[in-house]
């Protein structure tokens, strides 16, 4: 509970209409897109400028009140659940694109700018901002940076990290710093920009970002390849990469996923195939032509039962949009949808798909798989019912095995969704205890009072992941 005095102080900084303490407001900011995690904050505060952010954070630091920065709340790792109460800090007023610099090919924006809006704004000038998480219509740039989000174009163009050139950050002590800038090269000191990317709101509040842009590719072609068995599809993925072709998109969907996505999108997806690959290449017309021809023959060599090309950009966009709805569409099947983010080196994708199927069978749980196959980043998604405690135990075990397998194959526990509270208990699997300790000491240096998004990234005790309800 916030004292009256505290409320007044916050009101004095951001104005009355930007401090919410009603029960209803607290509830609607008590969760994000992660199932099974919920915790009530004490207040929701929406600063109108970076300097108001600094004042609020400084005061919270003095009072040791937790601060949970929040974009659009679409993260999938319980990154914005206010586990220890405190203040949810909304970025909704910091929503301006400040500059599109066509000479340096950069865009500078506030954190609350919607991802898709930013993309469209730069595209209107013939420029291209590639990181496109499936949630881009909803998510904010600040959220993308803090989760280091990837997307359908990650294979060729990389993830958010590869486009962040400079940041303005409010540190927990209320100091504002600038890292990097519009520079192609910069080695002055530690690379703090990279440190803040993917920091999940645990080190400071990002109040401005300068992002790299590239020229818009000339053309793009889109292919759909259908398979009778999942592993043949996975083999195709490895083969394409091994043939030294880097498509812009290489997505994998299994049959149950295709079925629910078709249920929603009704665009005539092939629900009879056991697995589907969505492949795209962009660039100069001649190169695209050549790569696509090669990709088509690799698909056929690897037992694709049907390969077709999108007839128009509208058709291709419909396919991409359908793919982006996969996770939410799966949710229509069962009350609880728990998705994972295990990632392996690209060459191991077929092994990973095989292992997931084995693990699902062993524990008798229903797992559908889709994901950024070209990145080695799969999203095995378990369809279950949180009310069934016995089944949830099995789900827990199955995911634990999936993590261990991924790490054993040289992979990681999360490719793009972040650690948050959800995967904190597993961080050591990837980093080892010494690795976790090294990170902890960084956190300690920036945020000695542990006010920034506490309970995320580092697990306090050994609690279970999916069965928890805070």
């Amino acid at each position, binding site marked *: 509970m916030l004292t009256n005095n505290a409320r007044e102080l916050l009101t004095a900084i951001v104005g009355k209409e930007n401090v919410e303490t009603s029960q209803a407001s607290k509830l*609607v900011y008590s969760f994000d897109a992660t199932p099974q995690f919920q915790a009530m904050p004490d207040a929701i505060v929406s600063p109108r400028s970076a300097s108001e952010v600094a004042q609020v954070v400084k005061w919270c630091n003095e009072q040791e009140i937790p601060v949970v920065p929040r974009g659009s709340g679409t993260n999938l790792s319980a990154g914005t659940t206010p586990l220890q109460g405190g203040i949810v800090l909304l970025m909704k007023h910091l929503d301006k694109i400040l500059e599109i610099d066509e000479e340096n090919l950069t865009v500078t924006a506030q954190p609350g700018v919607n991802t898709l809006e930013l993309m469209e704004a730069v595209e209107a000038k013939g420029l291209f901002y590639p990181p496109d998480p499936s949630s881009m219509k*909803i998510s904010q740039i600040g959220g993308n940076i803090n989760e280091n989000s990837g997307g359908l174009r990650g294979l060729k163009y990389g993830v958010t990290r590869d486009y962040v050139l400079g940041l303005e950050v409010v540190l927990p002590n209320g100091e504002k710093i600038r890292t990097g800038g519009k520079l192609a090269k910069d080695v002055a000191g530690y690379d703090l920009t990279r440190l803040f990317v993917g920091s999940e709101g645990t080190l400071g509040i990002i109040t401005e970002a300068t992002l790299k842009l590239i020229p818009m590719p000339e053309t793009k072609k889109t292919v759909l390849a259908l398979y009778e068995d999942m592993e043949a599809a996975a083999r195709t993925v490895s083969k394409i990469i091994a043939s030294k072709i880097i498509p812009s998109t290489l997505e994998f969907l299994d049959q149950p996923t295709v079925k629910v996505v078709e249920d929603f999108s009704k665009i005539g997806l092939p629900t009879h195939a056991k697995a589907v690959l969505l492949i795209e290449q962009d660039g100069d017309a001649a190169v695209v032509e050549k790569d696509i021809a090669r990709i088509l023959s690799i698909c056929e060599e690897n037992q694709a039962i049907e390969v077709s090309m999108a007839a128009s950009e509208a058709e291709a966009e419909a396919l991409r949009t359908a793919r982006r709805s996969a996770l939410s569409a799966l949710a229509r099947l069962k009350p609880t949808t728990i998705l994972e983010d295990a990632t392996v080196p690209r060459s191991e994708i077929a092994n990973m798909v095989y292992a997931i199927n084995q693990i699902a069978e062993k524990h008798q749980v229903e797992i559908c798989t889709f994901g950024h196959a070209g990145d080695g980043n799969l999203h095995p998604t378990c369809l279950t019912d949180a009310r069934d405690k016995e089944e949830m135990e099995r789900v827990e075990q199955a995911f634990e095995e999936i993590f261990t397998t991924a790490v054993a194959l040289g992979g990681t526990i999360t490719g793009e969704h972040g650690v948050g509270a959800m995967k904190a208990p597993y961080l050591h699997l990837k980093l080892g205890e010494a690795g976790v300790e090294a990170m902890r000491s960084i956190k300690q240096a920036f945020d000695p009072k542990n006010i920034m998004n506490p309970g995320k990234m580092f697990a306090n005790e050994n609690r279970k992941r999916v069965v928890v309800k805070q």
Partner: protein
Amino acid sequence: MKTVEKQRIQQQFQEKMDYDELLNCMRCGFCLPSCPTYIESGKDEAHSPRGRIALMKAVVDGEIEPDEDVKRSLDMCLGCRACEPVCPSGVNYGHLLEQARDIIYQNQKQSLPVQAVRKAAFQGLFPHQQRMIGLTGLIGFYQRSGLRTVARKSGMMKLLPESMQLMERVLPDVPTSKSMKQRPRHLRPAVPVKKRVAFFAGCLMDTVFLPTNEATTKLLQYVGCEIVVPEAQACCGALHGHSGEKQQAKSMAKRNIAAFEAAEIDYIITNAGGCGAFLVDYSHLLKDEPEWKDRAEVFSSKIKDISSVLVELGFDKFSLSLQDEIITYQDSCHLKNVQKTFMEPRKLLSSIEGAQYVEMKDAGRCCGSAGIYNLVETEMSMQILDYKMEQTKATKAKTIVTANPGCLLQMKLGIEKEGLSDQMRAVHIVDLLLEAYENANPPA
């Protein structure tokens, strides 16, 4: 709100809310960019579909009480259901909202004036077509007798809230009582019969908007429909259903089902998006009443919007023309989001020669009319309308076409509010189609 009230509401939430449907929301937020109240509130989760569903669930789970803020969040919802078609998980938000509102209204004491208005409208007026005719007759008297002129000149209107004042200005000149009472019950086309249809006349449409109903039956005749207009039909009950008067809505649904099942017909035609969607939902409304469930399903499966049947029977191939002008279309939320009819009106409008169809930005976003929303949530409604008018102005259209009486009045209000009455008009799609038809095929 009193503690006992809250407890009763909470208990009924636990008993009556569809928990599986609440769980079906996986909280992805895909619906947020489509929700007008989320956008206009400056991105407040409490005014988003995801937030509202979470609030309903939290009340069921006993995590929070159904207090004024929870009620406020639900009251602010337009019920436009734009959140449904964009939800990959297929959450039936409209049904959840209806159930929640029903529980709250049935258990909460309302202020006396609100109670009186609701009672008069929901029980005294809409269920009785004769009284609708009577009231419309009174409005007609007001408009024709000179009383209107007096009222406007004397400044008396200033005593009404702004939205009411504007409403008074934009209400069309209503038909005489005599013409409202003498409605035809059976019409044959001059051309060979292609379909037999029943016409759902609607309470408002058959009184205040009578000429639009007449235009509708004319168009149906042109495309070869034999039409019956069952006399025993009643108001669709949408206003009741959406305002937490479910019992009333159910009894009207039953009356309509009985009235229409006697006729041997291919379709039941509506020309009001809001009514049509509610008629489609009868099968859900009566799902727990075994003796009505199947009958309701048959009824619902026959509902078709006028624009949809016109396209099916090739009206867009007829010669249609207008003077050189730009026209634009404002979707009826329920026609689009529930009946999934949005291509057909555009197809029809694009087939009019001389007129240039220009799509406005966010044509599918609610205009803020939403039943009686514009009267009870005037501020938000006007904010939404202002955005809408910006988009319509950007098209440079002279004519804004709508497909539902509420939208039509709201767009007229928008035009009046912007002071554009001499350059812009709002019409119902059938009126414009008839105009275009008669323009191209002048009566001999």
